[in-house]
């Protein structure tokens, strides 16, 4: 495999993890809830997938059980933040601490264990023969197509081209007005926060079923936080979220290729690239172009609990 093909292949694998988690966060933030538990949900999902395929060697079952466990934790988070209206930042941090802590406690039994089943690459006829992009994108596992094509296009259509999408965006922008128009604010928030959490856990499963494929303590390594940052960078839209996930997959891949090829930079510094890159990408655009602020604006009611009785 030549340099470029290797770079792109890894970029799609690593980027898929970030893209899926970022999509989940887009769902939550669009309805006005900041979910800072992504990092913890990913850890839970990553471990669930490994444990599930250790019992039943089917990657689909591994992935689906991660989605289910993610939805369960997501529902717990949504119950606290949407129904009880507790502080979203605190609950999100708590979810990250709980998820990471639980996963690494239980995960000790699976430490270093390779995944017993992984998603096998599928070669798309003809398209996989295209140089570079063929092996990098059209000879990948099935989830990759779900993450980079089906989900972003589907969610984008849902959000911006349907009545329901208008409703859910209204809930994130102005819940009181949405409520007055008869939109079930609490139900929509609860559903999308839960679904978004399931996707975050799915991103963790994707990490341990395709990209790394094994469990080790700290395997998520801040990817959940990078995903949260990418959502800001992507202006809270599904397709840009997936593309920026790919961009960061590329930055991660650069570090890997550098290590494999023995570039004269210490691996520790190459590992810093995704974190520093994320910092740069959320800071520079805002400082450089004032106009970006309006285009990239967050949903107006983000992070604010909605009290119907206090209008």
């Amino acid at each position: 495999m030549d340099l470029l093909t290797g770079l792109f292949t890894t970029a799609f694998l690593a980027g898929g993890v970030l893209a899926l988690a970022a999509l989940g966060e887009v769902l939550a933030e669009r309805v006005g809830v900041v979910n800072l538990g992504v990092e913890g949900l990913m850890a839970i999902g990553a471990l669930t997938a490994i444990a599930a395929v250790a019992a039943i060697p089917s990657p689909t079952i591994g992935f689906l059980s991660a989605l289910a466990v993610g939805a369960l934790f997501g529902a717990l988070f949504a119950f606290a933040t949407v129904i009880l209206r507790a502080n979203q930042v605190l609950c999100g941090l708590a979810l990250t601490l709980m998820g990471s802590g639980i996963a690494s406690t239980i995960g000790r039994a699976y430490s270093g264990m390779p995944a017993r089943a992984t998603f096998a690459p599928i070669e798309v006829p003809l398209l996989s023969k295209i140089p570079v992009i063929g092996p990098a994108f059209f000879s990948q596992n099935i989830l990759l197509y779900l993450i980079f094509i089906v989900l972003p296009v589907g969610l984008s259509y849902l959000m911006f081209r349907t009545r329901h999408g208008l409703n859910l965006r209204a809930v994130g922008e102005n819940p009181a007005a949405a409520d007055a128009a008869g939109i079930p604010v609490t139900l929509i928030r609860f559903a999308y926060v839960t679904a978004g959490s399931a996707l975050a856990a799915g991103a963790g499963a994707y990490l341990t079923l395709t990209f790394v494929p094994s469990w080790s303590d700290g395997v998520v390594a801040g990817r959940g936080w990078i995903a949260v940052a990418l959502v800001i960078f992507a202006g809270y839209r599904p397709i840009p979220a997936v593309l920026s996930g790919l961009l960061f997959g590329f930055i991660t891949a650069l570090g890997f290729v550098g290590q494999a090829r023995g570039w004269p930079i210490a691996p520790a510094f190459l590992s810093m690239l995704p974190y520093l890159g994320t910092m740069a990408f959320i800071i520079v655009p805002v400082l450089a172009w004032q106009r970006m602020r309006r285009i990239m604006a967050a949903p107006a009611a983000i992070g604010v609990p909605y009290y119907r009785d206090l209008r």
Partner: protein
Amino acid sequence: MAGSLRLQRLPSASPGIVLAARAAAIVMALVFAGIILAMTGANPIELASEVVDASFGSSFGMEDLGVLIIPLILTGLSVAVAQQIGAWNIGAEGQFYAGAFAAAAVGLFVPGPPALILALMFVAGLVGGAVWILVPTLARAYGNVNELITTLLLNFVAILLVYFVATNAWRDKMANSATPRLSAEIPEFWGSIHWGLPIAILAALLVTGLLAFSRWGYEVRLVGSNPSAANYAGVPVRRHLITVMLLSGAIAGLAGMLEIAGTVHRLQGGISNNYGYLGIMVAVLARSSAVGVIFSAALMAFILNSGIILQTQGLTTSTVLAITGLILFLTAIGDELAHYRIARDKA
């Protein structure tokens, strides 16, 4: 006819109810952890008595607690200070490492009498922590970039940096994954408890005192509760934001300096038992009072120490993190529910 009952949300909760809700949250979390332990076949009552015995039954146990309290007071204070101006410093973990890194650089490479070296390390720790939060601070102050994420991302960078120097350039030829022992160390005054403890307590009293009673502190709290009103009143919002965030970073950096100068004595990977993250819990529980910071740091030290004692039972510092997360979760819920009261409608 009796009036019907209904729930009413008050704009602010009474401190007594909040305190009770928090106590309930902690008890519930510990009971829940006990139930989980029981399900894995352990006897939680036995474990609890083992923990209490090991923590308070001997002077060694008390010494361990005393040593763990030091970084927790400071990381808790760091988060609490930033909260006063409405900023989330989730990067205390990274600033802790940065402070330790800067202090170790002085301790390893600057020759001189120990007292002078310690003083220089003290300053280096403060500066290291402040430098580590500088970029997130400026980005927040001038571009309104969410500091919660930027401070957090730098944690990973700091940990990688410390790991790199400890296993490469500064490596002890004998130890492999740590630097040689530092030339100066903070003396101990009671068993293994060093003078870092009074320094940390003093720092907590000083900073919270300034916040509560000085003009500067009043302005900072004003910015924290309503930035536009503060701006309208002529308070230099941006300048206060920058100062307070840098102070927050410096305090966390000091925690790192005290840890390597007083407890660990060399720089290595994994010097922090998640102190930065546990500091968030300390700050939330403390509700920004100095006494609160010291008490909640003591509580978190006890929980962390329990996790360390129970390592033989399969617990780790990660388990402590999970239990801390559960306490934080229940505390957040309790804080919100404390706003409600049952009112009786006049029928």
